[in-house]
C-alpha cells in the first residue's frame, strides 16, 4: 500500500466522489487556481472545471447558506471554510438552518452537505486562526461531526460524509495535513459513528481525537518501555459517537484518560466522560476518569506559550501516569 499524506488522501477522496456523482461540487475561497489555502483542492479545477470547483468571494455566511440551499434542492455541496475559526461566520446557516431543516420539515427534506475546514493550533497563527471548536457543533442536534486523524481515515470518512444525507462538519487538523500513512487505492469508506482502536493495550484507555491521536500513540510508545500498556481509542466521529467501542475498552482496562485538542470548559471530553460514568463501564472503573485538554485561554502567538496551551506528548505521558497512580 502506498504511503501518502493526509492532504493527498483527502483530495483523492473528494476527487473520487466528484467522479462518482456529478452532483458533488466544491466551493470556497481560493479553492480553484490557488488550490485552497492548504492545497487540499489542488488540481481539481483542471479536472472538473469552474462549475464544480467554485472560487467564492470572502463571504462565509453565504458559502454555508448557499450550500444549504443547493443541498436542499438536490446537489451535494462541499463547502470549504479556509480556517475552522471562520465557521463562526456561518453559524446561523449551519446551526439554525442546516441542522434544523429536516426535522422542522417533518422529515420530508434533507440537507446533504459537508462543511470542511482546517482547525487547531501549532503554526503560530494566534487566537483567530487556531481554534478547534468541534464541541460547538457537536452540541447541535441535526449535525454530524467528524475529526479524522490519519490519511486512511480522512479518505474513508470524507467519502462517507459526502454520501451522507445530513449536514456534516468535517474538521481537519492543520498539523495532520503533511503526515503520511498507508492508504489503499480506490474506493473504500470509513463509516460515520465507528471508533477505531489505534493501539491495543490492557492497562489504560486513552481516548484521543484528531491531532491528539498521534500524540497519544507517541506517549504510548514511550510508556511501553516502562512496561505500561496503553490502549488508544480514536472516536473519529463525535456525532454519532461510538459508545460501544469506548465502553468495551474502558471495561477492559478500568482506567481512562480523555485527551482533547481544544479548551477544557464544556468540551467534548466532558460528554464522553459523562457517558462512561453513567454507563455500564462505571462499575469497572479503578480510578477517576481523567481529562486532559487545552487551557481555557485563547491560543497565544508566542511559540512557547502556544505549546503550553494544548496537550503535548509529555503531558499525555504524565496524564497516563496519574491515572495509573
Amino acid at each position, binding site marked *: 500500500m502506498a504511503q501518502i499524506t493526509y492532504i493527498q488522501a483527502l483530495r483523492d477522496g473528494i476527487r473520487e466522489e466528484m467522479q462518482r456523482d456529478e452532483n458533488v461540487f466544491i466551493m470556497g475561497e481560493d479553492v480553484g487556481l490557488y488550490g485552497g489555502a492548504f492545497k487540499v483542492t489542488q488540481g481539481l479545477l483542471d479536472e472538473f472545471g469552474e462549475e464544480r470547483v467554485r472560487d467564492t468571494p*470572502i463571504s462565509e455566511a453565504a458559502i454555508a447558506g448557499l450550500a444549504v440551499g443547493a443541498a436542499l434542492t438536490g446537489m451535494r455541496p462541499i463547502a470549504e471554510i479556509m480556517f475552522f475559526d471562520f465557521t463562526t461566520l456561518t453559524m446561523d446557516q449551519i446551526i439554525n438552518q442546516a441542522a434544523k431543516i429536516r426535522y422542522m420539515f417533518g422529515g420530508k427534506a434533507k440537507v446533504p452537505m459537508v462543511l470542511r475546514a482546517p482547525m487547531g493550533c501549532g*503554526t503560530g497563527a*494566534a487566537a*483567530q486562526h487556531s481554534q478547534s471548536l468541534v464541541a460547538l457543533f457537536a452540541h447541535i442536534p441535526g449535525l454530524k461531526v467528524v475529526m479524522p486523524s490519519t490519511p486512511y481515515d480522512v479518505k474513508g470518512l470524507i467519502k462517507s460524509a459526502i454520501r451522507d444525507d445530513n449536514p456534516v462538519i468535517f474538521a481537519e487538523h492543520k498539523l495532520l495535513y503533511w503526515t503520511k500513512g498507508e492508504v489503499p487505492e480506490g474506493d473504500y469508506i470509513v463509516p460515520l459513528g465507528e471508533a477505531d482502536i489505534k493501539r491495543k493495550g490492557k492497562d489504560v484507555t486513552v481516548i484521543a481525537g484528531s491531532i491528539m491521536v498521534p500524540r497519544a500513540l507517541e506517549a504510548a510508545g514511550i510508556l511501553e518501555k516502562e512496561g505500561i500498556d496503553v490502549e488508544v481509542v480514536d472516536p473519529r466521529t463525535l456525532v454519532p459517537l461510538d459508545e460501544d467501542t469506548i465502553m468495551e475498552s474502558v471495561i477492559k482496562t478500568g482506567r481512562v484518560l480523555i485527551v482533547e485538542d481544544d479548551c477544557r470548559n464544556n468540551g467534548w471530553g466532558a460528554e464522553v466522560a459523562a457517558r462512561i460514568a453513567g454507563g455500564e463501564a462505571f462499575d469497572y472503573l479503578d480510578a477517576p476518569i481523567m481529562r486532559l485538554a487545552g*487551557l*481555557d485561554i485563547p491560543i*497565544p502567538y*508566542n511559540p512557547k*506559550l502556544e505549546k503550553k496551551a494544548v496537550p503535548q506528548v509529555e503531558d499525555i505521558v504524565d496524564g497516563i501516569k496519574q491515572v495509573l497512580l
Partner: protein
Amino acid sequence: MISRDKMLWMLRKMLEIRRFEEKVDELFKANLMWGTCHLYIGEEATAVGACAAIEEKDYITSTHRGHGHCIAKGGDLNKMMAELLGKETGYCRGRGGSMHIADVESGNLGANGVVGGGIPIATGAALSSKMKKDGRVTLCFFGDGASNQGVFHESLNLASIWKLPVVYICENNQYGMSVPVQKASAVVDIAEKSRAYNIPGEIVDGNDVLSVYAVVKKAVERARKGEGPSLIECKTYRWMGHSKSDANVYRSKEEIKSWKEKCPIRRFEEYLINNRVASEQEIEKIKREVEEYIQKAEEFALKSPEPSIDGISDGVYA
C-alpha cells in the same frame, strides 16, 4: 495647503513602513520569525495619506495586513517588532503577533485576523463617539475582499441611518488572496457600493499619498460635523505574495512589474524634489534615520525577554 513638516512626516512614515516590512521579510526568511504575516509593501501611501488626515485622539481599525496602519497611526516600531518576535515587550505581550497588534491607548483598535471583522467594530467606535459627543472620528481600513462580507453591508447601512462619524477606507489592491476583484465583486469599483447606503463614495489613486490625504480629509471633516460616514476606495497593489506561504501563481510578472513602477514612495520623493519641498540630501537624511530606527527596533526586539509561562492565563478576563 499641507505644511512641509507634514509632508516630510508622510515620507518618513512611508519609509518606516517599507523598511519595517522588508526587515520582517528578512527575519522570516532567516527563520527568526514565527507564524505568518501579510506584508503591506506597495500600499504605503494609503495608510499614511489617510492617517495624516486625522488627529491623535481619533480611532482606526485595521486588518490582517495591519503593520502599515499601525505605523501611520504613530505606532512604536520597537513594540511592533517585539510583538512579531513574540516578546513580552511587544504591543500585545507576545500573545497577539502580526495579525492582532493593537494599541488602544493611541487609538489603534486593532488589526484583525478575520476579514471584515473590524468593520462593525469601527462602526461601534463611531457610535460611541457620537453618544459621548467626544468629537472623534474612526477610520476603518479593509480590503476589497472584505467588502463582500455581510458585515460590510450591515455596518454601512447602520452608519448611514445613524449618521456615525466613521470613514470606511477600502484598500483595493486588486486581489483577495488569489481571487481578482472582478471575479469576487459585482462592481469592480468598490466605491459604488456606497450608493446602496446613500453615502458619498469616492475613488482615489491609492499610490498618491497627497490625493489620499485630500479625499480622506474631506470625509473626516464631514464626519466630524455630524454628517455621517463616507466610503473611500484607494486603488493600489500589494507587491508581495498574500502571505509568506503564497507562491504568487495567479498574477503575472508583468502585472507586478507595472505596479512596482508606480511605487508610491519614489513618486512622492520625486514630487518633493520637483516642487522644492525637500532636497535629495534631506531625503537621504530621513532614510538614514529610518534605517537606524529599524536597526534599533530589531535589536530591541531580539534582546527582549519572552513572556513567562506562568502568566499564560493573564488577560483572559478583566
